[in-house]
């Protein structure tokens, strides 16, 4: 199990990350999947995470998964775990011409930069895309401070 840390976007780190991805993409063309072992960004599934004032949302692409193949937990207030298994359905006497899709189990643990309300988590799986919406904990919501004019 690996932890993925939140990294703020727009910073220096992100630009380096982007460059790394581009270089990896270049190598992928020649080397195929083998190169990905060197790539730090191959944690499965890749996630998009974004926030607004009230919520933080996570989405990822999980084609072929059923809801029952998937487990989602929130632990310790700010840790989101996505766990699942992609199962292969094979008919008998099948001879493969190509086998590019992969199957098996995966776990991804994401540490969020603020606590969330674990009772208010919504998850939906639509056309192979999982979207999780988590409500921020009261303490993590931005509070507008009124400024008095004297």
């Amino acid at each position, binding site marked *: *199990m690996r932890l*993925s840390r*939140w*990294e*703020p*976007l727009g910073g220096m780190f992100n630009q380096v990350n982007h460059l790394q991805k581009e270089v990896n*993409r270049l190598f*992928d*063309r020649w080397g195929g*999947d083998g190169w*990905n*072992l060197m790539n730090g*960004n*191959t944690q*499965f*599934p*890749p*996630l*998009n*995470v*974004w*926030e*607004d004032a009230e*919520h*933080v*949302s996570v*989405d*990822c*692409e*999980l*084609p*072929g*998964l*059923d809801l029952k193949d998937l487990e989602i937990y929130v632990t310790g207030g700010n840790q989101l775990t996505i766990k699942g298994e*992609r199962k292969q359905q094979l*008919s008998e*006497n*099948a*001879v*493969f*011409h*190509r*086998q*590019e*899709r*992969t*199957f*098996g*189990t*995966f*776990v991804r643990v*994401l540490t*969020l*930069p603020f606590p969330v309300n674990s009772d208010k988590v919504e998850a939906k*799986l639509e*056309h*192979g*895309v999982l979207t999780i919406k988590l409500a921020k904990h009261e303490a993590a919501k931005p509070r507008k401070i009124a400024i008095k004019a004297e």
Partner: protein
Amino acid sequence: MAETQAMVQKDRSEVHTAERTRGGVTFTPRVDIYETDTKLVLCADMPGVRPQDIDLRYERGELVLHGRVEPRQRVGAFLLNEYEDGDFYRVFTISESIDASRIEAECKHGVLTIHLPKVAAVQPKQINVKAN
């Protein structure tokens, strides 16, 4: 728990017969193709593609897969951005031993499955041997 290392990010499409009018990134869907006695089956991972947004075409011996993905609405600030949305596009050359009129396809949970039945002439025939 053993994680599957091989489950990797999607590849950008390198196939471009002609440029599209709509911009954005196009990805090559990962496919499995297997053959049974009666047909070829092609399974393609196209997450985010609704069944009505698939344009599947067979012409001049080529099977063209095109899945349109509506850009997802993500309102707010990104904390993590590890993948992009984009259409899926891929072309396969299909041999003449496929009966094009009986090709069937279905899409479920973002996986497109295409059944390509073989023409009767190339299907293996079981011959019964009579015992006298």
